């Protein structure tokens, strides 16, 4: 029996880790479900929550909008140029525009926006919540008779989702414009042609998948860091671990959403 002890200990450890992992996911999903329900209910929106939402949007989207739009435009331009040139080399210029729009508007730009917002605001939100939790601020809020979820976290989730939506909309529109001008040059006579390509790409399922995907990205970038932060033990040295875990899980979820959307579209 003595000899079995290390094995049992190892198994116990593994089991505990797995349970922890599952618990983490459960916390994430529960919080996500609550956030979705709360954000849809009108009573969530009052002057206090609105102020948080506004600030969240301001910091997440407005502050970075010019620089991020410029960066996205540059990236789009380079990618479009590469795809169009390569397509021309292979004699497939007719398909370049479609390939470029599919690549950028449907896949790269939403994912890139989500990753950027996650790095910038997701990490910050996670850290803030971890610290609030450690400093018992959440308990204090609860003690004062205010639901911390509804007044602190849900508005951030709403703000984060709207920010991702806004940034994706702006960068995607820019990418569409750039794609048109790179492929057809600085003139507007090819608009019918362009419309035809757009019509071919954005059929109803594609539009629905795109919307759902962007919303899922928006939810993930705030829900996961907050859920992870709330689940962390109230010890200061756990704070970095909680933030790190939140970010890794977020990255994993973003990729999962992307792969799922691709699978839905092309399989």
């Amino acid at each position, binding site marked *: 029996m003595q000899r079995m002890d290390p094995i049992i200990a190892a198994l116990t450890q593994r089991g505990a880790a797995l349970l922890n992992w599952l618990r983490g996911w459960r916390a994430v999903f529960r919080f996500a479900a609550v956030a979705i329900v709360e954000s849809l209910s009108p009573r969530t929106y009052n002057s206090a929550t609105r102020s948080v939402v*506004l*600030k969240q*949007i*301001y910091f997440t*989207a*407005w502050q970075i*909008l010019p620089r991020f739009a410029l960066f996205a435009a540059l990236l789009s331009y380079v990618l479009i140029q590469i795809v169009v040139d390569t397509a021309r080399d292979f*004699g*497939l210029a*007719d*398909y370049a525009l479609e390939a470029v729009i599919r690549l950028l508007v449907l896949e790269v730009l939403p994912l890139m926006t989500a990753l950027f917002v996650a790095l910038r605001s997701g990490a910050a939100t996670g850290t803030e919540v971890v*610290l609030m939790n450690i*400093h018992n*601020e959440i308990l204090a809020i609860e003690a004062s008779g205010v639901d911390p979820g509804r007044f602190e976290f849900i508005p951030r989730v709403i703000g984060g989702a*709207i920010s991702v*939506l*806004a940034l994706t*909309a*702006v960068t*995607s*529109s820019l990418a569409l414009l750039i794609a048109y001008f790179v492929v057809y040059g600085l003139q507007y006579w090819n608009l*019918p*042609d362009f*419309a*035809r390509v*757009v*019509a*071919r790409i*954005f*059929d109803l399922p594609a*539009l629905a998948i795109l919307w759902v995907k962007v919303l899922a990205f928006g939810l993930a970038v705030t829900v996961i860091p907050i859920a992870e932060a709330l689940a962390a033990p109230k010890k200061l040295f756990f704070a970095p671990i909680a933030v790190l875990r939140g970010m890794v899980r977020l990255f994993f979820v973003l990729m999962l959403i992307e792969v799922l959307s691709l699978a839905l579209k092309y399989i």
Partner: protein
Amino acid sequence: MERAPVRAPLIKNLEFKVGLLLVLTLTLAVAFIGYTLYARGVFERTQKLTLIADNADGVSIGMAIGFSGFPIGQVKRMALTDQGKVRIEMAIPVKDARWLRTSSVFTLEKSMVGAAKIKAFSTNLKDPLLADNAERPLYTGDAAQEIPELMAKVRDVLSNLQNLTDQQSSLSQTMVNLRTVSDRMAGRYGVVGGILGDDQNARKVIEAIDRANTLLASLNGVSLKVDTVLTKTDQRLHGQGGIMDETQKAVVQINAILTDARESLKKADAILKNTQGISSDIKGATTDIASLRAQVDDSLAKVNRMIDEINRKWPFSHKAEVKLP
């Protein structure tokens, strides 16, 4: 451990800025959806055209139909008929429907690379317009099927071409010769040099032509002289009192003389018969023979004179012979 409450920094026009961003996002989203719907032809009036094909390989929903390289409609629905053919329903925008006539032909072309293409060909744009809900056959041309045959033919053609263009081929030899000839033609003696091969020959020809020219000039002189001679000869022969004239007279005389001679000979014949018949009467006959002899002598003398005269007058024959019977 209480954390000092952190006041959010004062943000100017926070609500306005965020509101602006929200409106921008909303506008973009609505505009994009609107544009997609417009692009998909939701706001456009269309008419239906049904194409019947044997095989719908490569045809997909949303595929465009091209006319002169421009898309004028797209595939809306596809279904199999009871006969196992494919019904391809297309929506043609009413503004583009004028390119389709009752005589229009529709083809499905498949290429090696890229998607298949449905094309419409209207040869006569004066024919009546294609009606709404029209049904037309879709002809399929598969480029890939003809490729092996095409390759074999192309290979033949290429090898022929190679033979033709080979360094040793007769074509290239001919071209070389042609070039030499054209070089010579451009040279001093021009086309003649080109035809004869070199300058020396060409010079000879030109000299020959020069000589021929001189010869012709002298021949001209000779022919003038000959002309004069001939005129004179003509006068001698055929003129008044010329040779021909005299000869004619002589011939008339000869005729008369010969007639006389014949008469005399007839008489002689009769006399000879009498001689044979009447052998007894020799005395009476002897007198007749004497006169006959005189007549024959006379005729012969006349003939002799005439021959002499002809010989004197006839310049061409010095040995004239007149054979007597």
